């Protein structure tokens, strides 16, 4: 009896979450579908974004995420490997780093925006640029990514490390060829959470990558991200609602694509090296 109740509760909670998502997406579709078209995806925004499209904004968004991943992935993986492989539970330095990561995860996004503006844009002289925005986002994404990867690495059974050592492999080789691939599901999850956070960010990017909606010609150009565009259309531009909802649908589709890509990559690349 308790068994049946438990099963029901579990299915109910899953259904609740699914229903919530369907509700939100349904409303977005209802309010934004009419505005969507191929032209919308490719052309430049006109009339403050109310007509025309989001072409340059998509390019800016992808570039920003690219910078974020290019910086956060290697740095994060290296830190995660260090935490998982080279520290014990009670290691003071390791715990200090873990603590600082947890704190970074909690710093409000708007504070990151102000910090990014002061440090990357002004102090390092990058100005309002995609590079500045990407670096700021990398700072925001690091904690989540490192924690998840570290967990994944820590869970790999020690037998594998013993085996590698028995084979005379260097630790670097063991990490690269065995441990990282073994932890790839967790790393992939970390990437997905990171991408999710990055694409959704608004407050941090307004002060770092800026407001310009032109097609960016280099990483040092200012470029509006899709989330910033949605915010401006819905909160600041009169009559921008339809375009905002359409852009929101595109953003969601983008997130789906990124997630599928991350899933495919982790499955294929890291996993395959393990088996082959």
């Amino acid at each position, binding site marked *: 009896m308790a068994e049946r109740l438990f099963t029901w509760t579990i299915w109910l909670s*899953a259904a609740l979450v699914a229903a919530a998502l369907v509700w939100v997406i349904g409303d977005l579709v209802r309010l934004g579908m009419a505005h969507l078209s191929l032209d919308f995806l490719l052309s430049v925004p006109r009339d403050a974004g109310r007509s025309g499209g989001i072409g340059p904004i998509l390019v800016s968004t992808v570039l920003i995420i690219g910078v974020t991943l290019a910086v956060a992935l290697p740095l994060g993986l290296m830190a995660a490997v260090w935490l998982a492989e080279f520290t014990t539970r009670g290691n003071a330095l390791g715990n200090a780093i873990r603590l600082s990561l947890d704190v970074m995860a909690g710093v409000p996004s708007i504070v990151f925006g102000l910090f990014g503006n002061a440090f990357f844009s002004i102090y390092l002289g990058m100005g309002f640029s995609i590079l500045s925005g990407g670096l700021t986002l990398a700072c925001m994404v690091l904690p989540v990514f490192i924690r998840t990867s570290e967990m994944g690495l820590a869970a790999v059974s020690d037998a594998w490390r013993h085996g590698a050592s028995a084979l005379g492999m260097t630790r670097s080789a063991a990490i690269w060829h065995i441990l990282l691939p073994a932890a790839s599901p967790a790393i992939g999850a970390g990437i997905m959470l990171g991408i999710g956070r990055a694409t959704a960010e608004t407050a941090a990017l307004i002060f770092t990558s800026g407001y310009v909606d032109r097609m960016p010609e280099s990483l040092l150009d200012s470029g509006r991200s899709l989330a910033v565009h949605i915010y401006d259309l819905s909160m600041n531009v009169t009559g921008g609602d339809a375009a905002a909802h359409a852009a929101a649908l595109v953003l969601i589709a983008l997130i789906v694509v990124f997630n599928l890509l991350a899933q495919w990559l982790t499955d294929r690349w890291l996993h395959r090296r393990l088996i082959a």
Partner: protein
Amino acid sequence: MILSRASSLYRWNIDRTLAPLLLLAGLLCTAILLLIVLFLSKEAWPVLANGGWRAFIADNGWYPREGLFGLLPMLAASLVVMLGAITLAAPVGLGCAIFLQFYSPPVLRRGFRLLLSLLAGMPSVVLGLWGLTVLVPLVARWQPPGTSLLTAILVLAMMIVPTMALAGAAALSLVPAEMISGAAALGMGPRSRILYVAVPAARRGMLSGVLLSMARALGETMVLLMVAGNVVQYPHGLLEPVRALTANIALEMAYATDLHRAGLFASGLLLTLLVLVLAGFAARSLRYG
């Protein structure tokens, strides 16, 4: 974890360079945090230096243009919203994690995981917009003004449930299968296996998920800006509007000068300190738990 020596067959000992390099990466992260705290402190200095922070506690109300900086009501609001969202999202998140790991048929699993990552990736501005246009009028029909503590808690819970579910599922997946089959061999049914064996075994990962979500909730800006009402007062009713510290910074930063601006940075510092305390507790409990 093994502290083995590198194989003596290689001339170039890559391992000797590896550890310091990795350590550097880790230290860089700490360095970033220190930089942030430094930056916040520098900007908040005008208020902190002259004992101005006492105004945060003593002043009656937040009216920076008139020199009043009482931010306790906003602090309380941030905490209450966070706790409310966690209370709502933790059980549901746990349920989803268990569903994903143990109950979902393989056909649904991939799709549900995608659904969760979709909700996790839903931009706060989109959810905030939806909350403002759909949820707020609904709540308003019950009791105006609609933008309230309850609406904020609901939308925030929607935001953090997927994180908790995904982290929880990841933690559950790392529980060794032998432990669970061992429990089955002992005659435990699925419910007991999950609740009394798998979940406790995964509690470190789950706690980590909860803490990440708490920190996320505490730092959330956009949603609270749009649906919580932004009135500076102690949260004294579920259907009353409140203003969170984060929303306050977002709302006023662009228009603040001198002391007002320093006050906002000080509140940012306060939030960071709060997260530090939370994280400290977490670390302590993980060590002994």
